[in-house]
């Protein structure tokens, strides 16, 4: 599976995440900063909840009429002289892109940040036909230089690295001589990248939002690299996930505001680039040839299911930035290029439960993600839906869990059985308790008591007290 990153075993990935103090420090400080900025940017609007409602309605409407808007977009792009390719799978998308590269005898390809190209492993496909692909987003560039370290965050891909680590990567791989100051690091990368833009035969961009009514593509960056990628090379390819589309410019205005505020706490990013078709006669800038690759890769099978709202996602990562699980394990532990709460929802949908069966359980269901989602995706509820599917349709839970849940149901459904069980509990736990505290529990309690004490059930339950009190009051 191309989406898959890191070790195969989930537990192992979690263990290495927890043990990585550098990563955890970097993630903690990034989360704190981004949470604060997001909140300020949301509060500043004064009516953030109304914005969220509007955003959620736009996304709902668009996804419910996705076929209509994709058709409109394709027609517009063709009208403008662009080429449209609809790829059902990642392989189909890669083959099409490889064909263009071969036809153009492309040696160097400059690329702006795009999660969907990570999802389909496009870089690898291009490298297989001997193209050099250069990532031009600073975060992605760092990761590429660092022997293709996978992204750990969908907006800030190198979030798991601190500035000292980045300095060391540059030093080791690019003979960098200066300090770990972000300005110096950025300036160095900028000089390197400038040469790459000018030498590139093809520019490849992702797509934050396609605008159906005009056949345009909006790219949101803080570095301006998407603008360079889409203006300098003669051939441009834009790769978009099938759902990344809005009906018109009015809707774009709203979702871009939600995106930049929720993602990085900015009113707008430094650059918002909108591209409309290839260069026309008499125009000075822009590519001579434009290709749009629309990637399905499992998305249409989500349409019409109870998970459809997952397609509303605008990839702002606000859910990732507030997630306490993500904070402690980091992005790589999820094993998918889509980490955090949205990754836990999306990865099993785009792939399957065999690959990502643990992810729906990697949440305490605290709902912090749902609370911040700018388009109101009920993320924690979707995780519960996954769990229900795993239990009911996939029958993929362990026998011991099924037996335990069956027992739970029978006990709590019968007042008598429940009363007997709670009466017995103190006696049954006595062998494990010391001064009414269990420090080394049996069965599932073993995991609990690894880090915490567990109270021993009381001998006089609340119900016993209440009954006795009633009798005494009656006598009085």
């Amino acid at each position, binding site marked *: 599976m191309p989406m898959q990153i890191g070790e195969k075993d989930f537990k192992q990935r979690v263990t290495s995440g927890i043990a990585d103090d550098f990563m955890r420090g970097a993630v903690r400080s990034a989360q704190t900063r981004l949470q604060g900025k997001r909140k300020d940017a949301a509060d500043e609007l004064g009516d953030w909840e109304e914005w969220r409602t509007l955003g959620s309605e736009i996304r709902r409407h668009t996804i419910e009429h996705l076929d209509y808007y994709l058709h409109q977009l394709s027609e517009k792009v063709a009208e403008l002289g662009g080429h449209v390719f609809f790829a059902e799978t990642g392989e189909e998308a890669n083959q099409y892109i490889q064909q263009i590269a071969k036809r153009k005898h492309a040696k160097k390809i400059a690329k702006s940040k795009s999660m969907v190209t990570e999802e389909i492993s496009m870089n690898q496909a291009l490298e297989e036909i001997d193209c050099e692909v250069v990532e031009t987003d600073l975060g992605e560039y760092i990761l590429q230089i660092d022997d293709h370290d996978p992204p750990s965050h969908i907006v800030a891909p190198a979030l798991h690295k601190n500035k000292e680590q980045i300095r060391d990567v540059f030093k080791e791989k690019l003979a960098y001589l200066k300090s770990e100051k972000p300005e110096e690091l950025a300036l160095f990368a900028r000089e390197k990248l400038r040469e790459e833009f000018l030498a590139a035969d093809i520019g490849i961009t992702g797509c934050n939002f396609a605008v159906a009514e005009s056949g345009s593509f909006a790219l949101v960056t803080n570095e301006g690299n998407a603008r360079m990628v889409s203006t300098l090379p003669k051939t441009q390819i834009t790769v978009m996930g099938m759902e990344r589309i809005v009906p018109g410019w009015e809707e774009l205005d709203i979702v871009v505001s939600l995106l930049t505020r929720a993602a990085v706490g900015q009113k707008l990013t430094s650059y918002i680039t909108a591209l409309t078709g290839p260069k026309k006669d008499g125009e000075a800038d822009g590519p001579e040839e434009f290709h749009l690759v629309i990637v399905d890769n499992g998305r249409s099978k989500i349409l019409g299911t109870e998970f459809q709202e997952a397609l509303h996602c605008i990839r702002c990562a606000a859910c990732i930035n507030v997630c306490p699980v993500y904070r402690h394990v980091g992005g790589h532990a999820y094993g998918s290029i889509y980490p955090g709460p949205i990754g836990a929802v999306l990865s099993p949908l785009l792939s399957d439960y065999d690959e990502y069966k643990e992810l729906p359980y990697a949440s305490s269901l605290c709902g912090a993600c749902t609370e911040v989602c700018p388009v109101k995706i009920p993320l924690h509820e979707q995780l519960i839906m996954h769990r229900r599917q795993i239990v009911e349709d996939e029958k993929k839970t362990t026998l011991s869990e099924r037996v335990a849940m069956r027992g739970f149901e029978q006990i709590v*459904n019968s007042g008598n059985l429940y009363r007997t069980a709670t009466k017995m509990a103190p006696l049954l736990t006595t062998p494990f308790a010391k001064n009414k505290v269990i420090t080394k529990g049996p069965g599932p309690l073993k995991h609990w008591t690894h*880090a*915490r004490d567990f109270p021993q059930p009381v001998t006089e339950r609340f119900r016993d007290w209440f009954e006795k009190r009633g009798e005494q009051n009656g006598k009085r």
Partner: protein
Amino acid sequence: MDALRNGAYRMKVSLFVTCLGDMFYVNAGKAAVELLEHLGCIVDFPRTQTCCGQPAYNSGYHKETIDVAKHLIETFEESAYVVGISGSCVYMIHEYVHLFEEGSEWQQRAQRLKNKTYELTQFIVEELQIDDVGAHFDGVATYHTSCHMTRLLGVKEAPLRLLENVQGLTMVDLPNCHDCCGFGGTFSVKMSDISEQMVDEKVAHIEETKANLLLGADSSCLMNIGGRLSRHNSSVEVKHVAEILNSRGDG
């Protein structure tokens, strides 16, 4: 409040003590009964009550949860008000409506239960319209805002407002109070490694406050945080808000 005390208007309340309240944290339930009576309510305890079904629901065992929900709906059918001492379990009861077919009789019964079911502090502030329960407790405390109670049930202010009016009690803010304590039901066992990190962070923030008391309105979170504090041999005491609100200066 005087009118309530004088018995001019006595609300009948059924206490939903929750399984943890019945088996582990009996003091919270006892305090809730005495507090509600002090505020003029008549409290009963329907004996057939069991668990809200959350462990099954959150694990994806929804067929099993439906049976549990029906049992509790029947248990409280005759109650005028149901008051629970755990925000998370009260929210679970509110979720029952989504378990049944749209427009079905069971859904209507679930809706009726939802309409009359409150978390304790929510009931006192919203229904009894009381902000000061006349409590007195000497100490410095911090409060854990449990996720399901604040985010899902939507009760944020009520417990804090009541606690602010407790004589002798100094409340200090808990840094990063919005973060989950790492309980999450079966999460704490299934993903115990991650849960451990979360509760550790919570405990560190509690210790930062220098409070000698941790308060909360959800026994499950308190069991989790309390268990970790106890393992650390921490001197911070853990109590349910009901116990403080029922104090009259002798504690």
